[in-house]
C-alpha cells in the first residue's frame, strides 16, 4: 500500500498517521507539504490529518480545502485513489466539497477530548472491512468543530446508501443523527472525526483503530 500524508501548516496529527501507516503497512508514507501541486505516482491512499490547518482561519478546514495540494487530492480521488480524512481532515474534505455537509462548532461549545463509543454502521468499505457491521468500538475524539450537519434530504440519502460509516453511541458534539464518519458516493473517500491513528498499539490502551488501517492494507495491497 503506497500512501501519502498531506501536511498543512498547523497540522498536528500527521506524524501519528505516518507512524500508523508505516507500522501497519511496513511502507514509509510520503509526507506531502501543502504547496505541492502534484502527488507521487501510483498512490493507493491519501491521508488528510487532524490539527488546525492554517489556524483554521475563516472556518475549520476552509483555507486548507483551497490550497494547491488539495486540487491534486481531488483529482486523485476522482481517479479512485482512497482518501481518508480524520478530524481536521474531515473538515477539509467537506470544505473541499469531496464529502457532503459541514462540521460546525460543538453544540455545547466545549472542546471535547476523550475516548468515545462508536458503532460501525458499514463494514463493506475498504476502510471498515476489518470491523463487523454493528460492532461497537472505542476511538478517541479531540475537536471543537465536530458537529456534523447537512439538510434532511442529504442525511436520508447518506443513511439510505449506507454511507454512514461510524456513529456515536451517544451525543458527543451535537452531530445530526450522531454521525461520526461518512463515505462519499463512490465509497473511496472517508471522513471521520474520531482518531483511529491514536489507537493502534497496546500502549495506547486499545487497538480498535488499527483495524481501519489493516482493512485498507488488505483492500489496497
Amino acid at each position: 500500500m503506497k500512501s501519502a500524508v498531506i501536511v498543512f501548516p498547523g497540522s498536528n496529527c500527521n506524524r501519528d498517521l505516518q507512524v500508523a501507516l508505516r507500522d501497519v503497512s511496513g511502507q514509509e508514507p510520503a509526507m506531502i507539504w501543502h504547496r505541492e501541486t502534484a502527488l507521487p505516482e501510483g498512490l493507493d491512499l491519501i491521508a488528510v490529518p487532524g490539527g488546525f490547518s492554517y489556524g483554521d482561519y475563516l472556518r475549520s478546514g476552509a483555507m486548507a480545502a483551497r490550497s494547491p495540494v488539495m486540487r491534486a487530492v481531488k483529482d486523485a480521488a476522482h481517479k479512485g485513489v482512497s482518501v481518508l480524512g480524520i478530524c481536521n481532515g474531515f473538515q477539509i474534505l467537506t470544505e473541499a466539497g469531496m464529502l457532503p455537509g459541514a462540521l460546525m462548532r460543538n453544540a455545547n461549545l466545549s472542546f471535547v477530548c476523550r475516548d468515545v463509543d462508536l458503532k460501525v454502521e458499514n463494514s463493506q468499505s475498504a476502510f471498515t472491512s476489518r470491523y463487523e457491521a454493528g460492532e461497537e468500538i472505542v476511538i478517541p475524539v479531540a475537536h471543537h468543530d465536530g458537529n456534523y450537519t447537512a439538510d434532511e434530504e442529504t442525511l436520508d440519502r447518506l443513511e439510505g446508501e449506507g454511507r454512514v460509516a461510524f456513529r456515536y453511541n451517544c451525543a458527543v458534539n451535537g452531530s445530526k443523527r450522531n454521525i461520526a464518519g461518512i463515505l462519499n458516493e463512490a465509497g473511496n473517500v472517508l471522513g471521520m472525526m474520531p482518531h483511529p491513528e491514536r489507537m493502534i498499539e497496546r500502549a495506547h490502551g486499545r487497538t480498535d483503530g488499527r483495524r481501519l488501517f489493516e482493512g485498507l492494507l488488505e483492500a489496497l495491497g
Partner: protein
Amino acid sequence: MKVRVFVTLKNGVLDPQGKAIHHALEGLGFSGVNDVRQGKVIELDVADSVSDADIEGMCTKLLANTVIENFRIERLAA
C-alpha cells in the same frame, strides 16, 4: 472601493454560539430578546474594476460555506 460581505447561518441551521450569547444577555438582565444568531462581517477593499459577479464568486468559493451559510454583499461609497 469598499465592499462589505455579511455571512450568516441559514435558517434552520442551529447556532450554538448565538444561543450562548442569548443566555449571556439574559444573565445580564436584558429581557425581551427572542433569539440571537451570530454571523461575520468581512470588509474588502477592491479595485473599481472588480465586478459584482467577481465578489459573488469570492463569496461562493471561499467567504461563505453555502452548505450552512448565506451571504449578502453591500458596496459602500468610496
